[in-house]
Structure formats: structure tokens, C-alpha cells
């Protein structure tokens, strides 16, 4: 029972209260870059969730069974980024062979994910928070879902922004950042949320 409440707390934290975008500032580049249309935002969000879940699992295994026994924890950053880069490459090849429809849907976004700081961030945070294997995977997947939620909401607002009337110098990134800032303010409301 304890285990389940714990996992629920992690889920709630990762999706709402400690959302990767709005309170931890991880993954802002793709968040701003591919949020002009809702369809592409959904694609990117799903791809990120997928990779974050897998990366959490594999980096946790690499850290526990390779780096810690060999006393190589100081090589964490290098090891993790290599694992993530090859993982993304591998997923790309796998999808291309076995699930071509999903591959064409995600195609463009997959390579971009290597340099998404949310992915490396979740791997490092798992280790920092001393999560066990299941907690790490749950944190990775729910963190990705939080990203998905944030980017889809943001993209829908941005689509409406086209009709808004604002000073010309705020065109592009500034107005997007103001929107994101107001959304961050709204998400702060979740920070009082607790379950137990």
C-alpha cells in the first residue's frame, strides 16, 4: 500500500506540482520550438514520454549495475548522454522497421530528443532522488506525460494567439514566453496538492 501511495505521489508531482516545464525548466527548447500547432505538439509530447520512460529505465540499470560497482560514478554525465543518444538512434531504427506508421508520425522529432534536457534531466534526477527501478520508470513516464500536457495546452493557446492584438516587438518568442509564464503561474496553484 505504501508503495502505491508513493508512486501516486510521484505521479502527481511529476504531472502537476513539479511539472518539468513550468517548475523545473527542463525541456524548454522543444516546448517553444514545436508548439505552433496542436498536432505536432501531440506528436512531440508522445515521443518525449516514450523516450523519457525508456531512458529512465536504461540509465538506472547502467548506473546501478555498471557505474556504481566499477566506481565510475563521476562518468555519469558522459555515460548517460551516450546511452540516451544511442537509445534514440536505436528507437528510430526499430520504429522504421517494425512500426512505419508510428515512425512517420514521430519521425522528425525523434532525433531532436537527444538534446532535450528533460531526458537527461530525468535520468540525473532519478539518481539524485535515490529512486528505485520502478519509481524511476514511473517518474520518467509521468514526467513525459506532464510535458505532453504542458505542450498541448500551450499549443492550443498559441493557435489562438494569432488573432490577438499585441505590440509588434513582442512577436514570436516574447509573447510565447509571456503565455508560458502565465501558465506557470496557473500551475503553481497545484503546488499545495498533497495525498496521504
Amino acid at each position: 500500500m505504501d508503495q502505491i501511495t508513493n508512486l501516486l505521489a510521484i505521479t502527481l508531482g511529476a504531472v502537476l506540482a513539479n511539472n518539468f516545464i513550468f517548475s523545473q525548466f527542463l525541456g524548454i527548447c522543444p516546448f517553444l520550438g514545436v508548439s505552433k500547432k496542436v498536432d505536432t505538439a501531440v506528436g512531440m509530447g508522445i515521443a518525449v514520454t516514450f523516450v523519457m520512460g525508456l531512458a529512465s529505465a536504461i540509465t538506472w540499470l547502467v548506473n546501478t549495475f555498471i557505474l556504481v560497482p566499477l566506481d565510475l560514478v563521476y562518468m555519469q554525465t558522459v555515460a548517460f548522454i551516450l546511452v540516451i543518444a544511442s537509445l534514440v538512434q536505436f528507437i528510430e531504427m526499430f520504429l522504421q522497421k517494425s512500426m512505419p506508421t508510428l515512425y512517420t508520425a514521430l519521425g522528425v522529432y525523434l532525433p531532436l530528443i537527444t538534446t532535450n534536457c528533460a531526458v537527461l534531466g530525468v535520468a540525473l534526477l532519478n539518481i539524485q532522488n535515490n529512486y528505485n527501478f520502478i519509481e524511476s520508470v514511473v517518474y520518467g513516464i509521468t514526467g513525459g506525460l506532464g510535458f505532453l500536457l504542458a505542450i498541448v495546452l500551450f499549443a492550443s493557446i498559441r493557435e489562438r494567439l494569432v488573432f490577438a492584438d499585441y505590440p509588434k516587438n513582442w512577436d514570436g518568442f516574447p509573447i510565447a514566453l509571456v503565455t508560458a509564464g502565465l501558465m506557470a503561474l496557473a500551475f503553481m496553484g497545484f503546488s499545495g496538492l498533497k495525498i496521504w
Partner: protein
Amino acid sequence: MNLKKQFKEGLLTQNPVLVQVLGMCSTMAITTSFFNGLGMGVAVLVILTLSNVIISAIRKIVPDKIRIAMFIVVIAGFVTCVDLLIQAFLPDLAKSLGVFIPLIVVNCIILGRAESFSYKNGVAASFFDGIFQGIGYTVVLLAMCIIRELLGAGTFGGGLLGPDLKGIQILPAQFPAKMLTLPVGGFLVLACLIAAMQWALSKSKK
């Protein structure tokens, strides 16, 4: 090689944060106190310069297809060195920057400069490009820190000056809007800075 042009590009017309809009995560996340911004800025400047030099030195022997992987390995190596040095000599800074020091690996500024500049230019030019782009990044970070700290907490120089290293109180404690030191403030202050930059650039074109 045109140093003056490179300097102007790094600081103004091609500023990594305000014009190219790269490396946003760290820019917004850690600019809550002056010392954080300075530490992060200098760390990125050092890593950017070193990785620019190495990448430009090996650019002729690296096959085109695996260049991105090579860039990342070079950058990750330097980030690890800097991370360990900060942990050893500035433990307080390491604590407050937290996960964002190892995350310099995926800071788009460094990979972006590797791909668009040092992979195509000589060692000396890449060296100065790293320094000037790094200065441009640091200046923006410091501006963000000063604004957020002054308006959000009423202090200046947090982590570096004042009693208990909390900064010197400039505005009386009841005035500041604490919101600016929270994540919201990061988004809003950066939005204002980019908008001001776009205004200035469109003005100077006329």
C-alpha cells in the same frame, strides 16, 4: 578573421540567448541570485571555448555522419571536468545550480556553435567565437539575475555580498514582488528582455 565583428555578433546582433534563443532552460532556471548567474555564465563560457577549440581542431578528421556524436562526447568530457571542479572548490554553487551543471551537455548554445561555427572555421576564430558568445550569454544571465533579484527580493549580489551572503538590501523588504524569483518571473523577465532586443534591432535597422 574579424574580431570586432565577432564581438558585436556575440554580444548583440547574434546574442545566443536574446537573438538565437538558445539555452533557455538554464537561463530561466538558475537566474535567481547574482552568484548563480555568474557561476553558470563562466562555466558555460569556459566549456564553450574549450569545446569550440577542440572541435575546430579535429574537424578535418571527423567523418560527417558521426559528427554530432563526436561533438557530444567532447562537450560531455569538458562538462564533467567543470562539474567536478565546481563540486570540489565551490560546493555551495554546486548545490544551488544542482542538476543544471551536468545539463550544460545538452545546452543548445554549445552544440549550436559547434555545428554552425567551429565545425567550419579555424581554431583561432573558434576560440574567440567561444569567448564572445560566452560573454554574450553571461551578460544576459547577469541582467536577468539583477532584475529578478532586485524586483523579486529587493537585494543585489546574492550569494556574493552582504550579510550571510544574502545580498545587500536595496529596496525595503515590503516592496519586492516575490513572484519574480519564482519560475513565473523567469518567463516574464526573459520575455521582456527579448522584446526589448527585438525593438532595439528593428530600430537600428531603420
